[in-house]
């Protein structure tokens, strides 16, 4: 059996997930990153996307994260995320209506600052939708 690495997802409010896994693929800022036991210590930014937990060659679990940070030490892999939900729990209809509302708000935004903030929300919602509709690593 392959070595396993401890994998934690923590939000500011609590520990969301903590288990030993064979491999996780994490959406780092500069491309997806696979982490297995014995990975070099790394700190990276995480973009909004899907974390895939692998068991063997198939995906065991998918989590959507809204960005955060990744820390890898030889024993552990920790994702600090503000928001993380299992992909199958995403309510597609709700996200779609959210996207619709947000795009309307963006076009009505009064100043640059507001527009930027709204666009960030919109991008997040779109990433969520994509995660739900086209799961990565099938």
């Amino acid at each position, binding site marked *: 059996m392959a070595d396993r690495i401890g994998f934690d997802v923590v939000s500011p409010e609590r520990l969301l997930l903590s288990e030993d896994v064979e491999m996780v693929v994490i959406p780092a800022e500069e491309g997806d990153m696979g982490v297995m036991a014995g990975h070099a210590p790394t700190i990276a930014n995480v973009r909004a996307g899907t974390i895939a937990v692998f068991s063997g060659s198939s995906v065991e679990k998918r989590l959507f994260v809204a960005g955060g940070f990744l820390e890898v030490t030889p024993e552990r892999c920790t994702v*600090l995320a503000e928001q993380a939900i299992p992909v199958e729990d995403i309510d597609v209809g709700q996200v779609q209506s959210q996207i619709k509302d947000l795009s309307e708000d963006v076009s009505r935004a009064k100043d640059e600052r507001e527009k930027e903030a709204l666009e960030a929300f919109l991008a997040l919602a779109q990433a969520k939708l994509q995660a739900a509709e086209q799961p990565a690593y099938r």
Partner: protein
Amino acid sequence: MPSLKDLRGRIKSVQSTRRITSAMKMVAAAKLKKAQGAAEDARPYAERMERMLTSLAAGVSPENAPKLLAGTGSDKVHLLVVVTSDRGLCGGFNGSIVRAVKARIKALEDQGHEVKLLVVGRKGVTLLRREHGPKIVERYEDLVKPAPAFEHADEVVAKVREMFEDGAFDVCTVYYNKFISALTQEVTPLQLIPFQVPDVEEGEDGDDAGEASQAQYDFEPNEEVILDSLLPKNLSVQVYRAMLESFASEQGARMTAMDNATRNAGDMINSLSISYNRMRQAQITNELIEIISGAEAL
């Protein structure tokens, strides 16, 4: 001299006060348990973030470090973020923090610094308004309801960062009550901006710290970019932590205060009952004397 009826009324009213205080005590105890749990749940995130920041900060040269890390280079204007409670009846909880803040304001002003205040919690606003009203630049009342959430901290930090980017202050310190036990809270200042790198030497006894100092991290994309996104997040985390601690302290302080009040009410009921009984006895004796002397006169 109060009449028997007066005494009866007073005993009744103290009894109902005792009922209320003992109920409040129990509510506070239940909330305290929850608040302590929340504070513990938040710990892993804060610890890891601090570890990452420490190793990042060590790798960045001071010249191109972001302002949030290095500060503006001056310390003229101080922003004090004061975390208090929205509700009273919690003993010296708000009083002690306000006292510490006032002392700090005085010390800073004596050194010629300018002070601005950002107050979280209605009680803090009430207590600081009279003396330092014009210094309060922002206040949050009833923000933390029913319990602190990360969004609340984010809201406060958004304001702090906006002010920092506008150059409204140079140094930012949070004042909050650190939870030590249900009986004791400690007013703790925590400097947010510029970021204070925790002492590595000191932390070396913990397993986590040892692990961190050994690890030579790879950074992706690079230190500066990660720092830029990590530092603001760290502010929120620190403020969130301060809010959680303060909330737990508030419940602890209220529990203790209400416990004392309940006990005092009990003592008062006892002494009132004794004087009530004495008076009743005196009245009976009096009536007897009257009857007997009336009978003798016949």
